[in-house]
């Protein structure tokens, strides 16, 4: 694939979900992203017909869509050059190929990006913050202010932590978007369509371990800073309430998570339970 064309599809692929709709999902974005490849080989009414062909239903994980985009760009080139009697078969091959690629790439992408990299980047951010002295985000704001949040490295540490998290996520996302186009294009219509160029399972496993260790480390370190911070304003009722709630919430969250109940229901339950428990108590 020409570098200029690849770049053009790459940048357009950032808008693949722009027209997301329940009927055909990413169809508008896919047609928008593949447009430069179609415009390179078709002209006039043929181009219009080709774009309409790509307005049928399509859905996958957005970063992994580049495999389908590369694959489609290659086959569209072949279809444009093919004899008229071969075109319907090639068009059908594009249609079924897109459909076939979208499921495995979605499965890998959802697990890698939403299930692993997103929480991993947060765990890394929290760990960097802790290392650079941003430790009191679990305290109420008025208490956290008293804890000299900016004492060590100031606001720079906050931005640095965020930048590290974003870099960890985006470096992988951009690399896969870029490489996916190449491997999809060069897959020569093989069954795997370039998806097997990488050991995804190994990557996910390693990232999970790194993220898990970081998250556990942050949780343990947070416990110590929380206990020292929460009583720094004296043994107030608010401090004791927070002290009682923290371990209950932490353990209960594991239990509700196992049962597939969202954390915000636990949050609502804690508000209700704490309010009921404190009702009638004189302040």
């Amino acid at each position, binding site marked *: 694939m020409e570098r200029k064309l690849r770049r053009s599809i790459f940048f357009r692929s950032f808008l693949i979900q722009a027209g997301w709709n329940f009927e055909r999902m990413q169809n508008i974005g896919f047609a928008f992203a593949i447009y430069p490849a179609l415009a390179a080989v078709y002209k006039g009414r043929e181009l219009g017909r080709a*774009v309409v062909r790509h307005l049928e239903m399509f859905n996958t994980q*957005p970063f992994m869509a580049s495999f389908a985009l590369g694959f489609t760009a290659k086959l569209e080139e072949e279809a444009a050059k093919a004899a008229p009697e071969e075109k319907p078969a090639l068009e059908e091959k594009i249609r079924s190929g897109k459909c076939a690629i979208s499921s495995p790439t979605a499965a890998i992408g959802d697990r890698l990006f939403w299930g692993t990299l997103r929480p991993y980047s947060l765990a890394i951010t929290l760990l960097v913050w802790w290392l650079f002295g941003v430790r009191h985000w679990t305290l109420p704001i008025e208490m956290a202010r008293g804890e000299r949040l900016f004492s060590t490295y100031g606001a720079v540490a906050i931005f640095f932590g965020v930048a590290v998290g974003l870099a960890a996520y985006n470096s992988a996302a951009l690399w896969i978007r870029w490489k996916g186009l190449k491997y999809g294009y060069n897959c020569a219509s093989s069954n795997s369509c370039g998806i097997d160029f990488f050991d995804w399972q190994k990557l996910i496993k390693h990232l*999970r371990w790194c993220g898990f260790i970081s998250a556990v480390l942050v949780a343990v370190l947070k416990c110590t800073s929380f206990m020292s911070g929460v009583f720094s304003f004296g043994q107030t009722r608010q401090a004791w309430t*927070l002290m009682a709630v923290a371990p209950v*919430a932490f353990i209960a969250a594991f239990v509700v998570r196992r049962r597939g109940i969202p954390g915000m229901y636990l949050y609502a339950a804690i508000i209700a339970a704490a*309010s009921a428990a404190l009702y009638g108590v004189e302040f």
Partner: protein
Amino acid sequence: MRVEAIWLCGLAAVLKLDMVYAGQFLLSRPTVAGIILGALTGDLLTGLQLGLCSELILLDHIPVGGYVPPNGVVCAASAFVLVHVFGVAPPFAFLWGLIMAVAYSQVEIGLRGHHSGWNPKIEKEVAENPVALNKWVIKALAQHLGSAFLCMLAACSGIGIVAAWLWEVMPQALKLGMTAGYGAVPWIGMAVLISNLQPRRGF
């Protein structure tokens, strides 16, 4: 309506686009959005805490397939506007932010349903003029941007004044209950984060 609320909601609406519709660079992460809003208004700590709490409480909502999760940016930005512009207490503002995030997901569902109706029109138009596709993409982005901006601004302006007064007259037990719930959010989030990243067998 205060000018600060207008531009904060506008900026949050732009960041919100990154969540699904444009880019997905994670700039729409509630933590990032909260920090950006906080840094621009000189209230970094409030932005950081509300953003992080929003992210942690919504961590178990994954935007897979057609599922539209509660919007983290709407949660963080609305809570931040309520605290910074209207002076609402953070525990109460966070609760409102979360309610707005859940409510906004319904607006988003409505918009996605509305865009389904575009397909026949786009097909007809694009068959004649393929470049017309750009117009529809821009139109979709503008609708998402506009709806997020208007919803956040209307909700914050409406709730802001009432919420500040409500917090003053609220029973002390309820106030402490909300403070306890708000204090529990980072711990709930940490537990969700650990279980999300827990290595599992197989793929």
